[in-house]
């Protein structure tokens, strides 16, 4: 069993760096966690190990929540989660894991989204260069 006092639990996230508009991409995540279900006993002393699991996972894209996932005891240690996402614009993907002690950890990735012509699609409106001639 891993050292419980360690704070910097490892979080892994794999997302494609670039995508085409409207493409469905696969995102894989893995969190290093002991996921103690709260029913196991120490074989020598008989003391029950306290429950410690990740119970909420939030997925956000450009600050907007894509989905929320609630987990209960029984999920295996070092949980692996994969999902598909349809992207329309360039954005910041953020996964947040919260355990039942309230400790929150996150991992981020940026996905560049291009249209068919090869132009980067921004998540906000951008003035095209050359139009604003008044600014000197």
């Amino acid at each position, binding site marked *: 069993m*891993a050292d419980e006092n360690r704070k910097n639990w490892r979080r*892994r996230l*794999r997302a494609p760096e670039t995508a085409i508009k409207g493409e469905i991409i696969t995102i*894989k995540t893995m969190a*290093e966690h002991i996921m103690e279900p709260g029913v196991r006993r120490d074989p020598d002393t008989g003391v029950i190990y306290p429950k410690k699991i990740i119970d909420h996972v939030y997925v956000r894209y450009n600050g907007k929540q894509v989905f929320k996932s609630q987990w209960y005891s029984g999920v*295996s*240690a*070092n949980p*692996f989660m994969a999902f598909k996402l349809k992207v329309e614009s360039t954005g910041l993907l953020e996964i947040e894991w919260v355990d039942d002690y309230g400790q929150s950890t996150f991992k981020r990735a940026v996905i560049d989204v291009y249209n068919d012509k090869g132009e980067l699609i921004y998540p906000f409106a951008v003035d095209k260069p050359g139009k604003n001639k008044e600014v000197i």
Partner: protein
Amino acid sequence: MKKIKNYFIKFYIIFSFLCGLAYSEEKPYSLNELKSGSHFSRQETRDIENDEFSNPGMIWVEKGEELFNLIDGSKNISCNNCHDQSGVSLVGVAINYPKVDREKRKLINLEQKINFCRTEKMNAESFQFESDSLLSLTSYITYLSKDMAINVKIDGDAKKYFLKGKELYYQRVGQMNLACNQCHDEIAGSYLRSEKISQGHVNGFPSYLMRWDSIASVHRRFQFCNNQARAEPLEIGHPDYNALQLYVTWRGNSLLIESPSVRR
């Protein structure tokens, strides 16, 4: 002068011929029959193992790489200072272990070698067996020689350990009165409840075992095997387990290292 030189050449040829007659023994499996443990595991388990992202053992490898570069001890050096920076690469080191150490003059495995290196070269504290740090470092160093063929030597100094290991392999132990060869040689490939019995090679170790949610060393797996036969297990790092590890590793000579493997 020329005569003396000729004499030396002759002597050298005879000597090398004698060395060529090194200790050799026949393996229980021919080269075609030799199969790694992943051959006997299920397709789903193999898929997890082959994808480096979904393989949980890679967490330990990453931690080991961090520890490899971590400065520790009173000399203020890390493993990296001696090994990578001065050109003594650790790639392909893991295929030779367990082996007889020149300074210690006894058989040691990779975990013990790391601890000797730490206490004597770095003046740092040695890690406990089966601690997270030691398993991480071992996994990282074994991972460096992934896809290389195992090649342990059993001649010379290692011969007596090899014979001891062979004796232990064929010795019946425990209430079940079982020896290793009864399962792993005679009925390998058949089902034991829901699992297929493997040929008992250790090319995947340190291996991620799902039943323990952690990387495990060969010795811990030996302890588990002994428990299954209802025998009293030895402690981790025991010389007898080292000898047994030498024999079992030799059985799988020429298999490719696939650590960190995933097993149930």
